[in-house]
């Protein structure tokens, strides 16, 4: 116990925003990886689903090489898991346990807090995509298309899903967020154009479902990675609209405690 006694003489000053953002992103990212449910949801389940959907057991996908369809689907699923379900549940419980309230009494601006969350989700998605691509390549996946388009789709999809996730987490109780975020994830997986191609649905139903954020992201990724086509404007526009509605709505209705 020989540490020199510090003086408490006041010397208050906030750190530069860049440093706060780095600190915030680092802790958010580390805590995401430390939470076993989160790791299961965002890393393990997508990889398992990638493996199983690639087996010609469940249903026909109507494609020559299953893996060409499955990898873009699983990337869309991974984005949805991290940016929507994972973010919503994590943030919901942070609200419940007064984490957000406590952070509100520090020098950390809310914008930097949200920025830190966004960056940590993007980092997680990077890890997800690397793992999914690695497993895909091991299963003889041949990607096509422009990687930049993939990046644009993933970032826009993240914005749309994160807006929806924060809207959910900021308005209802944490337990409700937990249940709803998992349920919506499951519904979108099967009915949102991710695991089952929308062409399997009746035309009229598919016409509606294609505007779901999951369907737009998934379709866009398929167009680029599976078909090697150019920028999927229709899907990008759909995601932009979702983001443009969800993010301001979350900002408007989010209750911090």
């Amino acid at each position, binding site marked *: *116990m020989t*540490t*020199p*006694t*510090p*003086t*408490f*003489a*006041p*010397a*208050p*000053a*906030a*750190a*530069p925003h860049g*440093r*706060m953002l*780095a*600190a*915030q992103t680092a*802790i958010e990212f*580390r*805590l995401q990886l*430390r*939470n076993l449910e989160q790791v299961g949801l965002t890393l393990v389940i997508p990889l398992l689903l990638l493996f199983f959907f690639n087996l010609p057991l469940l249903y026909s996908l109507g494609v020559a090489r299953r893996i060409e369809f499955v990898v873009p689907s699983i990337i869309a699923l991974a984005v949805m898991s991290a940016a929507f379900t994972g973010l919503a549940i994590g943030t919901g419980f*942070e609200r419940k*346990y*007064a*984490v957000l*309230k*406590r*952070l*509100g*009494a*520090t*020098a*950390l*601006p809310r914008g930097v807090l949200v920025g830190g969350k966004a960056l940590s989700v993007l980092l997680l998605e990077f890890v997800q995509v690397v793992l999914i691509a690695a497993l895909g390549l091991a299963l003889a996946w041949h990607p096509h298309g422009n990687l930049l388009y993939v990046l644009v789709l993933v970032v826009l999809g993240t914005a749309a899903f994160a807006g929806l996730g924060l809207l959910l987490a900021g308005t209802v109780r944490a337990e409700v967020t937990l249940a709803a975020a998992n349920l919506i994830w499951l519904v979108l997986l099967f009915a949102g154009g991710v695991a089952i191609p929308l062409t399997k649905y009746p035309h009229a139903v598919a016409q509606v479902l294609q505007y779901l954020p999951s369907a737009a992201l998934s379709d866009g990724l398929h167009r680029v990675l599976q078909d090697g086509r150019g920028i999927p404007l229709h899907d990008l526009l759909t995601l932009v609209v979702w983001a443009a509605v969800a993010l301001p709505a979350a900002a408007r209705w989010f209750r911090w*405690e």
Partner: protein
Amino acid sequence: MVEPAVEIVDLVKQYGPRRAVDGLSLTVARGSLLALLGPNGAGKTTTIEICEGFRRADSGTVRVLGLAPDDPALRPRIGVMLQDGVGGYREARAIELLRLFAGYARRPHDPGALLELVGLTDVAGTAVKRLSGGQQQRLSLALALVARPELVFLDEPTAGMDPQARRVTWDLIRRLRSDGVSVVLTTHFMDEAEQLADTVVVVDGGRVVAQGTPGELTRGGARGQIRFQTDPGLPLDLLLTDLPEGTRAEETDPGRYLVSGEVTPQLLATLTAWCARRGVLAENLTVERRTLEDVFLEVTGRTLRT
């Protein structure tokens, strides 16, 4: 002129039909320590949370370091210890959370040294949610201090602490004050207010019912008493001629005496000298000063839960 650390005038806060704060005014001088003392539900936490910017006042004015409580420029300058737990990432380790908060400040304290100061070095790597209640309180205190604030709000800082941790915390709070930090704390421990505060403000029903230094409050009304035992039948009227006006003396039982009035060192000396001149030995002599608890009972008519 330097603004007060906190200035509250006619603060009102209503929750539904209940007035949690009902016209409360107080001033915290720079560099001083003010204790808000009162029973549960007196409005202490509501008042402090309005100062911290968590809640809005319905009416009245609140200035903190000369600023409105919700002014973002205030955040880096104040340190906050919430009631009930740390309020911070529960899965984070104690040292991680302290480092994070240090990362928000330009010139923070060294997190490791601060953790040692609050006695948490051994649990630095433990997740926040696995710390005991008292350990969480101490971490919470460290989080409030790490950014070198000018003013700290401590909401029941020693709740849930064992006696030893309480002493350590008290020492720390005294050092804050002597290093020039302004402190506002809430407590329902009498001894805490008495030991630490420059100013004690007793609140009840959302109002200030008494305020002053601990000394002023306990001397106020000037009542105290001295009890002793010796031979029965002392001529108390003779004793009273030696004692200040207003002092009373009675023999409650044969050989048992009670002197009440403004108990000063002089009074005690006069009394024992008088006994000595008469050749009697005053036994079991006790001096009973008025405590803050007595004051509290007087002004609120209630006992505190301690």
